[in-house]
């Protein structure tokens, strides 16, 4: 009984970890390259979720295709946002940088509330995969999809960073912007690219959210808070750390909800205890290295 519960809890944690990793790796890439924490990252996820939801409910677009479209739409929106105003705050003081993306976040949340009301909606899509039975443990089909797509997004990003020229330039711009400039790299282009990739992964992740969670204007806030904790665990700017952070956070959350009396109401409180503890013990994240803050 106890072990079944534990196994069930950890397996579900693993599937959410896929989603968390996809969201957090976009956030951490944007930070690593530009030095800006995108507080509106969760709102791109939220918009992606709404898009996938409406494409399915209103137009019958299959969720997997909807996700892809949502990803493309969020890439386009990221482009607009970056060239429209984020590029202008790159040289400003940090409080203006923080404020810029927080402003964007508030704007998008409230526009969504005006357009779609604050009520939560659930997408009534049939499971895309059959449920997985491992003895007494059951993993619902859509959770499997989330795990697979999340891992695919994450792996795709790692591949891009390691094996393409653009990825190499991104890493250079992240590690040493001054050297990148000296090497003739168009740093602004790299900054934009990091936001485009962030937008793409956020949009697709939104589709995953619609698949296993709910769709609501504030859903992005919950998720981005968790992404902060993951990024704190894995190290700001470290994509590799994001996966470890996602697994750890997701396990901690599920175990708390399962085994601590009343632990279900802790919500992202678990995430925050982690953030504060980790940053206190190791300011660069548990698995992060010393880099610019």
């Amino acid at each position: 009984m106890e072990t079944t519960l534990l196994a069930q809890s950890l397996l579900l944690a693993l599937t959410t970890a896929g989603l968390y990793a996809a969201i957090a790796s976009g956030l951490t890439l944007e930070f690593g390259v530009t030095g800006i924490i995108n507080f509106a990252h969760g709102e791109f996820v939220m918009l992606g979720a709404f898009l996938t939801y409406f494409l399915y409910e209103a137009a019958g677009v299959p969720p997997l295709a909807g996700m892809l479209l949502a990803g493309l739409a969020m890439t386009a929106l990221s482009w607009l946002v970056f060239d429209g105003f984020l590029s202008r705050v790159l040289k400003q003081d940090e409080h203006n940088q923080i404020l810029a993306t927080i402003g964007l976040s508030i704007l998008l949340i409230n526009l969504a509330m005006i357009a779609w009301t604050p009520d939560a909606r659930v997408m009534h899509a049939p499971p895309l995969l059959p449920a997985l039975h491992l003895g007494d443990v059951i993993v619902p089909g859509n959770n499997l999809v989330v795990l697979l797509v999340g891992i695919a997004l994450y792996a795709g990003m790692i591949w891009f960073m390691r094996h393409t020229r653009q990825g190499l330039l991104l890493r250079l711009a992240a590690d040493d912007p001054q050297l990148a400039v000296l090497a003739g790299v168009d740093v602004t282009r790299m900054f934009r690219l990091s936001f485009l990739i962030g937008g793409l992964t956020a949009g697709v992740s939104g589709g995953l959210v619609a698949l296993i969670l709910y769709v609501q204007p504030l859903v992005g806030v919950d998720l981005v808070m968790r992404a902060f904790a993951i990024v704190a665990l894995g190290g700001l700017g470290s994509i590799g750390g994001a996966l470890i952070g996602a697994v750890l956070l997701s396990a901690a959350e599920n175990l708390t909800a399962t085994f601590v009396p009343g632990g279900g109401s802790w919500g992202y409180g678990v995430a925050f205890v982690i953030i504060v503890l980790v940053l206190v013990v190791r300011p660069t994240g548990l698995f992060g290295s010393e880099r610019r803050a």
Partner: protein
Amino acid sequence: MKTGLTRLLPYILILLVTLALVWIDKPFWIQLAIGVAITAITALAWDILSRTGQVSLGSAAFFGVGSYTLAIFEPLIGLTLAWIAVVVVCALAATLLGLLTLRLRRMYFAIATLGFALSMQVLVVVFPDWTGGSGGIAPPVLADGDPRWQLALIGLLLLAAVALSDALLGLRFRPAFFMIRTKPELAAASGVPVVRMKIFAFIVSGVLIGLAGACYGGLYGYVVPTDVFTTNWSVLPLAIATLGGMDTTVGPLLGAIALKALEEVARSVIGGTGYQVVYGAVIILFVIGMPQGIVGLLRKAGTLAGRRTAAGEKKKERERHA
């Protein structure tokens, strides 16, 4: 040169407006003024902290702790001591958070303080025996529920916040604070006890926000955690100080008036849901258009006017820009 009168102007205006509103006794205007005053206090407190380079997203922690401390301690030790407890508890929380985040720079600091604020909310929910959990808690009602007296008390707190902000912009603190912000090593090499000064700023800031939170809780005598620990109370002070103009006393005051006025307009046009869209829009427009805030804009206008006057005047104008 800042003359004695311009220095005193904010105090005189706050006094006059408060007295006038208490005299006229129009509920709408009194509520609006109370809202402006409370947000202005939090923004001034945020600004004081930011002068030492600590850009916080944790104001909500102190706002909530202030109102909860008053509510928890009042039945135990009486009203007067409960207010003292608010000061003590907020000072302790500020010292703790200040020490924990001492080594964190820039974005790490922002995230850690945000995490602290949200952890506080979780603590409240996890220990319902003391805090009433998510159902909320009842702090003592401020001034027996008479809005005029409530405004008068909160106006006094605002005056105190303005005086503190001005004092910390004086020669004793301003250069040391700014030096800590720009290069802490240089401040230390000038004899400044950097850690003590940063914690000191944190305590002043945290206690002010906590007192504002306690007043807020006392307006209706009832608060729920999502009311005072909401991220809004962390973002609003930062937004107001930046919009008004950082490193000044007037900036947060102007910012609070502007944003609250705008909020009222938006609320009547858009309605209760989504009216905060104006916050987002205004923040983005300001960050793009006038990153130095309202005060920066006024100064620019002042400099333009100053160019037309004698060279000596221009020099004085520049001095004022410090």
